[in-house]
């Protein structure tokens, strides 16, 4: 029977924020460096707020001069006149941490993200590939140095033990032989553990200074006095891991690009290239059952610049055709300022679950088709000329607003019988609007119209008086008349009682 012995390595980069900057500026490596971040102090006496630059990290050279995180820039410079400073930049730290994890992944497929500057590697089985623990440690040092970081490596039977070994070990690679964890860690200071402040204070009050002293305490007593936090501290002192190993996988790179040997200045030709790139991207997405909910189209220009557009997809999709349509329509509205020499498209992938329509639900346009046709129509007539009308709660004539077209998915209307459906009595006469209402000349006898634009009024009915918003500057008041003109047209005219003008609202048709 083969007994699988767990072995872990911890890769630790000390003073990681400073190391991330040194990675970008290697010349700073031997010089005292402090990473600063502004701290905003808000005085209680109402005085203006003050921005004080504070040290968030210092490299080893700066620490030799006594510079520590938390110091103000003035204090740090007082301790180290030769101190160099750089602002804290999140992107530097994030990219360095990502590079560290990828370097670890080059040694073992099982890597866990341990936080900024720390990675845990499951080394079980690597002996046959790389060699003994020392060889694995050397390989890790080599990989991490290759990306511009200086690591400390600890190898032990657990992640906790490996980390403490890396922190306290004498050299770049420190190995704890199997079964020697407790003895090796016994003299390590308890401050090495990342304990909750109240637990650390309590243990300090008890006189516990080293991991050996903590490990020697009775477990039941710790549980009774400190609860789960005490048990966790005891486990760490013994070099035991209770948390499961969470493997880190690199985020996929959902991007496809195409370099061009010629310059493209026509959108029609560019659409062909976009389609080629999108086909490759969509094949990748489909292969892993993913869909994209947005695209970023970046065009390299002959002028040396770039033209980038974010194309929001109305629904998550992995089909080339609607994606291409939306991308082309977006580029039509926002064309690149120069000829294109390179096309790059990246997708933001998400995972979706397929839904099922209702059994009694009538067929409706598929979302992908609807989105495409709406985008085409918006390009044709303008986005403001498209949608579903919604009546405004007002008595004002022709008061409505337009909403984006999004038909409801419920089928309630389909199963409710319509009142009067099929009966002639339920038919409503429609008004054929004239927009805007046309001003007309009307002759009247009394208040009744007799001629409209010199056309004889054969019959008329009215007035239908309406007014509103008299409490506001938008006040309106009108008398509506339904008239039949000599040529047979049945129309609605209205007299603006505030201005005295007549308007033709439309024709009943």
């Amino acid at each position: 029977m083969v007994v699988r012995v767990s072995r872990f390595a911890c890769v630790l980069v000390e003073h990681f924020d400073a190391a991330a900057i040194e990675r970008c500026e290697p010349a700073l490596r031997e010089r005292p460096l402090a990473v600063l971040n502004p701290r905003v102090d808000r005085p209680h006496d109402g005085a203006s707020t003050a921005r004080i630059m504070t040290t968030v990290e210092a490299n080893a050279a700066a620490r030799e001069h006594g510079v520590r995180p938390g110091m103000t820039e003035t204090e740090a410079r007082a301790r180290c006149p030769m101190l160099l400073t750089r602002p804290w930049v999140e992107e530097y730290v994030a990219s360095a941490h990502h590079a560290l994890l990828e370097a670890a992944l080059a040694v073992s497929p099982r890597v866990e993200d341990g936080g900024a500057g720390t990675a845990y590697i499951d080394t079980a089985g690597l002996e046959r590939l790389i060699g003994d623990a020392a060889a694995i440690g050397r390989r890790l040092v080599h990989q991490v140095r290759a990306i511009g970081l200086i690591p400390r490596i600890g190898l032990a039977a657990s992640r906790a033990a490996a980390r403490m070994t890396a922190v306290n070990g004498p050299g770049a690679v420190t190995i704890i032989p199997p079964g020697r964890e407790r003895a090796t860690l016994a003299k390590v200071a308890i401050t090495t553990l990342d304990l909750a402040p109240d637990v650390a204070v309590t243990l300090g009050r008890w006189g516990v200074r080293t991991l050996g002293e903590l490990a020697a305490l009775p477990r039941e007593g710790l549980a009774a006095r400190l609860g789960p936090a005490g048990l966790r501290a005891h486990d760490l002192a013994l070099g035991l891991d209770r948390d499961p190993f969470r493997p880190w996988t690199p985020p996929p790179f959902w991007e496809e690009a195409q370099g061009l040997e010629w310059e493209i200045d026509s959108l029609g030709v560019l659409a062909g290239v976009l389609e080629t790139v999108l086909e490759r991207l969509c094949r990748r997405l489909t292969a892993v059952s993913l869909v994209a909910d947005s695209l970023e189209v970046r065009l390299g220009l002959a002028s040396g610049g770039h033209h980038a557009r974010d194309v929001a997809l109305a629904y998550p999709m992995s089909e080339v055709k609607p994606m291409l349509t939306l991308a082309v329509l977006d580029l039509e509205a926002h064309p690149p300022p120069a000829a294109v020499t390179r096309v790059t498209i990246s997708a933001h992938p998400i995972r979706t679950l397929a839904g099922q329509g209702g059994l009694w639900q009538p067929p409706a346009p598929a979302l992908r088709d609807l989105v495409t046709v709406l985008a085409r129509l918006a390009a044709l007539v303008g986005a403001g000329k498209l949608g579903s009308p919604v009546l405004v709660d007002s008595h004002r004539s022709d008061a409505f607003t337009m909403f984006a077209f999004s038909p409801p998915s419920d089928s309630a209307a389909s199963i409710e019988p319509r009142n009067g459906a099929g009966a002639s009595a339920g038919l409503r006469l429609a008004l054929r609007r004239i927009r805007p209402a046309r001003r007309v000349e009307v002759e009247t006898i009394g208040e009744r119209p007799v001629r409209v634009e010199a056309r004889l009024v054969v019959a008329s009915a009215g007035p239908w008086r309406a007014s509103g918003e008299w409490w506001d500057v938008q006040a309106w008041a009108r008398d509506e008349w339904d008239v039949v003109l000599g040529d047979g047209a049945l129309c609605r005219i209205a007299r603006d009682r505030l201005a005295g003008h007549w308007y033709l609202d439309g024709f009943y048709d």
Partner: protein
Amino acid sequence: MGGRLTPIRGEITEIVGGLSSGRTSHLLACLGEAVGRGETAALVDTEEIFDPASAAEAGIDLRRLLWVRCSGNREVALRAADMLVRCPGFALVALDLGERVPRLPTTMAFRLKFAVRRTDVALLIVGRRRLTGSSAALAVETLREGIEWAGPGPAPTRLARVRTTTRVLRALRGAPGQEPSSWWCA
């Protein structure tokens, strides 16, 4: 038809007529019929004549109606209708061309005919005169027959209702002829 016009799925239906003949009321009735079944309809409105208040009174669920306004551009309206009939899932696509109906090449009419057959959409075209010729499966002309007024005194104060009839100009099934009258309440 019994006074109510029903556009045929997968075919082109045309309603022609003059002002105040009842063609727009027929159009709203057809839209109401489609969205009343819970289906989705679209209206390509060339001259922006659609009155949402009339549609709401006719019982149309406006949320299921896509209204495309074309600012009087008939070329754009035809292209918009062409796009919509190629999108499967719409029960009815209505195209209101207004008073000035353009000349439509026969090839374009055939394109529309085959597009609606493929997507099984009912295309309803409303205008002063016919547009698609022999590509339409049904073409009717609306005619006004009478008007009723209402009011308490001798002088009417309100339009009550309008009576119209339809005359079938072309029908693939059945012979052309006069249809029964229908009353449209104001």
